[in-house]
């Protein structure tokens, strides 16, 4: 049993190396499509990171009516805390609010000097566990009688969420598309190898080889090709990404990037597994026709 697997592996290597230049070309094609796939995956991961960063900045400010006493306020905070999608509720007194505003205004804080009394109401800062619920939570908060008004970047928040959603869908679609393309490249390569051994396959069938026996070396060749292509792609992406991150960190430090080590470990093993899987699927597809004898 083990011997026949070893034999199938040897045949797989043979069938790849025998068609030397052709295999090299297809290896390059597989590497390139996996490379593009990896790049898209990197971009997608980082866009997702950015999207999450943006989303996490979404928060709700609820301004309270005048004269809500501390006990009622505490009750309100607890009620809001209990709402779905809320992470934390922080009370910001009118004094704190003014201090924050002063801070924000910086050089122009003289505007506030003119004021005789603090114009700001007390407020609550509501941070969200799930940014997608911002509108729903804001509406519920606004419905409390103690609340005068809520602000959550109306309009902007919805747009931001729509954009991050589009980014995620586009990334996923690209990845899927490239996977299909890679499968077809692999299938085509294996098909050529199969074509070259058509006669042999027909004879194998006549002497009683099972489909699986006939498939085995080709499926292995597909897996091998997929994995070697993936390894090449992973190597290139790793080098490229490290370089890019170094550039970004020094030149655009405010852009959030996934650290190379953290991203590349799963990406590398993911690519290898994907290469193997796509190679298997590809060779399976390309053999189906030839086994109908």
């Amino acid at each position, binding site marked *: *049993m083990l*011997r*026949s697997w070893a*034999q199938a592996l040897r045949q797989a290597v043979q069938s790849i190396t025998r068609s030397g230049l052709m295999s090299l070309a297809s290896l390059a094609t597989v590497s390139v499509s996996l490379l593009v796939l990896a790049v898209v995956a990197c971009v997608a991961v980082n866009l997702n990171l950015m999207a999450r960063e943006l989303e996490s900045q979404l928060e709700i400010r609820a301004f309270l009516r005048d004269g809500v006493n501390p006990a009622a306020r505490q009750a309100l905070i607890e009620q809001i805390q209990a709402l779905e999608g809320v992470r934390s509720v922080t009370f910001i007194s009118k004094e704190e609010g003014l201090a924050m505003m002063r801070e924000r205004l910086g050089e122009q804080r003289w505007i506030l000097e003119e004021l005789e009394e603090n114009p700001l109401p007390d407020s609550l800062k509501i941070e969200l566990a799930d940014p997608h619920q911002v509108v729903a939570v804001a509406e519920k908060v606004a419905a409390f009688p103690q609340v005068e008004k809520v602000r959550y970047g109306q309009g902007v928040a919805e747009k931001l969420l729509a954009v991050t959603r589009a980014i995620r869908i586009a990334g996923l679609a690209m990845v899927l598309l490239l996977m299909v393309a890679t499968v077809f490249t692999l299938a085509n390569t294996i098909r050529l190898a199969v074509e070259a051994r058509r*006669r*042999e396959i*027909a*004879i*194998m*069938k*006549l*002497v*009683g*080889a*099972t*489909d699986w*026996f006939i498939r085995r070396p080709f499926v292995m060749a597909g897996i091998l090709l997929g994995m070697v292509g993936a390894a090449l792609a992973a190597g290139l992406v790793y080098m490229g990404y490290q370089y890019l991150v170094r550039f970004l960190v020094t030149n655009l430090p405010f852009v959030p990037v996934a650290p190379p080590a953290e991203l590349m470990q799963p990406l590398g093993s993911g690519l290898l597994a994907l290469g193997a899987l796509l190679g298997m699927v590809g060779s399976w597809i390309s053999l189906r026709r030839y086994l109908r*004898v």
Partner: protein
Amino acid sequence: MVRFVNVTKIYPGQTKPSLQGINLEIDRGEFVFIVGPSGAGKSTLTRLIYREELPTSGQVWVGGINVAKLKRSQVPYFRRTLGVVFQDFKLLPDRTVFENVAFALEVTDASRREILRRVPAALELVGMRDKANQRAQELSGGEQQRVAVARAIVRNPSLVIADEPTGNLDPENAWQIMRLLLNINQMGTTVIVATHAREMVDALRKRVVALENGTIVRDEERGVYGYA
């Protein structure tokens, strides 16, 4: 061993049947010639036996198995019980004689030891042992067919089917192959040979089944070729 019950075969896209109303019974240990003019349906009949084709209607039984009832996944195991020899040898040209014969055992996941035991014995029988390491493409037609016969018998089948095994050979080589098939038959294997080789059929006086236009027109013990 082989039984045809009212078998009709119409190839897809054809209207005229290639075989029609065939009833035939071949017993274990028999040696049978199938003869008839070109296009009579000899090859079709052999293909039905090793299940390269399925009957359009009727039944084909081989060794107690209704061939049409075999599942796709069972076909390989069924074929392993048969040996088949073709006019064009169907060897792998870039493999050695040994490898070509071993091939029939490898597909069954036979052990190395079994391969090393059986292949030389089969090559010995067909007189090709000394050329075991030559590539098939370097052999003469007669030698190639002997290798094909060795491949057909290496698994000890109880039935060997040969479709014009001597069609591409000169008379001397043809006789050698035919003698091999007779030897195999004497060892107890059922042998069915579709052929155009009038001299051999007439000289050997075995059972002859004659086909014309897809039907059996003659079935004689100790028969002759019977066509001009």
